[in-house]
């Protein structure tokens, strides 16, 4: 089904680089009283009978389900409100980190259609995680639409991820006794092909932001062909290859899985920050002061050690974490939260000691009797 080159040219957009990787990650505390062991993680993530679950134990236990592939034929997002149809598949997977944090993510790499008309499903199913865009508009327009508030009739990666997370969270293996209340976070990400403008480009730093509804957005520019490594201006990226007439039918979306892992890792750390920050903020609020200190206990026991930014990232992508540590500065915020918790614990120990001290003195003579 190799498309003639001229047709690739014809459907290739005039504005905005292709391809664009779109995705969403949902992150939650596993609905269980404590961290679960490897066997449970494996069973939780076995989404189909005998599906393989990838397990890593170092530097942190992490389990990843097999990819769940779902066919879609729906309207694609568009910043300018253009009508662009998308046909292809999205890929989702579930992840458990540290036996404690549950995630589901869905993604699709969007390319301009290789043929002017819809093909057989088998053609699309053969290329997992790729959606072909049938219609006008470039990658920029698609990304802008994806980042705008969701419209009901448009591709909804978040809903797919959420359903997969529900599947994990309602598993009968879980006791439902989470020690703290936390909100699921939503991280949307867009990875655009780098350096399409021609000429040497300096790598654009990743952009991370949180909007009013609490939706997190991560914007990256990276090489989407193969490894997802950072591009310098000298490298030929896919977009220029497209312009040179690269056969898109042969594009396999390699590198998307590594980028997915990176975004899941960012989502885990953003979630940890969100949960701990809220606990710490509440410490200052009267009147339930004493109760709140107790509420921090489970977080200290079960979450603090999970902070390990970049632990699972491919070396080629380590530049993204380095940039995020500079701005917005994930680890700086984490350090301040941890310091605050330490202070609060020291204080509560001190309070307990002075209270005990008083009692011990009073109890002292009685014991001698």
């Amino acid at each position, binding site marked *: 089904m190799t498309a003639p080159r001229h047709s690739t040219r014809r459907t290739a957009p005039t504005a905005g680089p292709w391809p664009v990787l779109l995705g969403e990650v949902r992150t939650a505390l596993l609905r269980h009283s404590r961290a679960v062991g490897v066997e449970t993680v494996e069973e939780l993530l076995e989404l189909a009978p005998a599906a393989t679950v990838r397990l890593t134990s170092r530097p942190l236990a992490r389990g990843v389900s097999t990819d769940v592939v779902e066919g879609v034929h729906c309207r694609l997002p568009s910043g300018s409100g253009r009508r662009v149809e998308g046909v292809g598949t999205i890929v989702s997977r579930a992840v458990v980190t540290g036996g404690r944090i549950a995630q589901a993510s869905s993604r699709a790499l969007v390319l301009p259609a290789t043929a002017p008309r819809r093909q057989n499903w088998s053609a699309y199913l053969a290329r997992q995680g790729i959606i072909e865009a049938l219609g006008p508009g470039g990658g920029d327009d698609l990304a802008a639409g994806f980042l705008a508030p969701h419209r009901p009739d448009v591709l909804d990666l978040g809903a797919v991820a959420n359903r997969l997370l529900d599947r994990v969270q309602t598993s009968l293996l879980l*006791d*439902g006794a989470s020690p703290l209340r936390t909100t699921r976070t939503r991280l949307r990400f867009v990875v655009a092909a780098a350096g399409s403008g021609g000429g040497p480009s300096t790598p654009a730093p990743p952009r991370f932001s949180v909007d009013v509804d609490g939706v997190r957005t991560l914007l990256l520019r990276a090489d989407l062909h193969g490894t997802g490594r950072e591009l310098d201006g000298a490298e030929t990226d896919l977009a220029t290859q497209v312009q040179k007439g690269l056969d898109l039918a042969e594009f396999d979306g390699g590198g998307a899985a590594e980028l997915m892992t990176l975004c899941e890792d960012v989502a885990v750390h953003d979630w940890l920050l969100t949960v701990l920050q809220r606990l710490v903020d509440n410490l200052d609020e009267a009147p339930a002061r004493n109760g709140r200190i107790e509420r921090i206990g489970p977080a200290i026991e079960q979450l603090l050690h999970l902070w390990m930014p970049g632990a699972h990232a491919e070396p080629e992508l380590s530049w993204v974490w380095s940039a995020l540590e500079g701005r917005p500065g994930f680890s700086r915020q984490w350090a301040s939260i941890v310091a605050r918790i330490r202070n609060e614990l020291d204080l509560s120990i001190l309070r307990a000691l002075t209270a005990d001290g008083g009692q011990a003195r009073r109890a002292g003579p009685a014991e001698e009797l």
Partner: protein
Amino acid sequence: MIVLATSDKGGTGRSVTTSNLAYRRALQGDDVCYLDFDFGSPTAGAVFGIEAAGRGVKTGAGAHSYLLGDVAEPARIDIWRESSWLKKERPPGAGRLVLVAGDEGGGEFQVQPQMIERCQVLLARLTEEFDVILVDLSAGRSYAADIVQGATATIGAGTPVRWLVFHRWTRQHILAAHGLVFGERGIVQNGERLGYTREQMEDSIRFVRTAVQEPDSPQLGLLRPTQASWLHQCHEELLKLAAQRGLGRSMVAGVIPWDPVLQWREQIIRDLDIDSTQIANPETGQAFDDVALHLTRTSH
């Protein structure tokens, strides 16, 4: 914890009392969600003073639409911010207070297995976020009640499920509440069918007597002596009847006194209604506070 609020008869004060319990519990520091599953008359919006959801939401994104599969997630309303009775922000020290409203013009429907599944997913999501989820079920045996009871059966042993059964303090109401709980195809029997033991079920169910006028209450001070003694006698008889029917003291989560404010308007009773304007009785606020505080008490 999931708290299922039900009653056999309509108009017992289930919605008003449950709303006040949610409000008090959030003030005590817990994150609280009120889930309006009374599809016939979803009034929680009105009780919380939320104009846009007075009789359920009109957006087609309420709890009813969610169960039917029309929306992926029901809309949520931040009560602290949206309520016209409150100060547009969460009071310091209080937990979150969120309403998942019903749909205007919802009505009843036939149970389908997907609905139980959807309900279970929704409850699981809410238990991630909220310490206490109060579910207002409609009066009597309803499809909504069957769905929720089915969904909670597999929610995980670590999420306690409790029932609050509301009834007025009259002979008919006591008998009706008894039937709803202990009768043929009642809550206990349904629970047994779902795999709970009778003891587990009885342990999870408590009664709330609403709009009660105790014979000694100051409001009744103007009664003629004959009326007062008749009232005393009635009250004694009701106490006896309640004890006989399994609604006795050990099964009671609280007694909410009759309150003039609630008589005239379905609303949240704030401390300022008691202390500043003094339109509500302090005993009412106290009763709400006590029941809210004891929701999570493990054994009575």
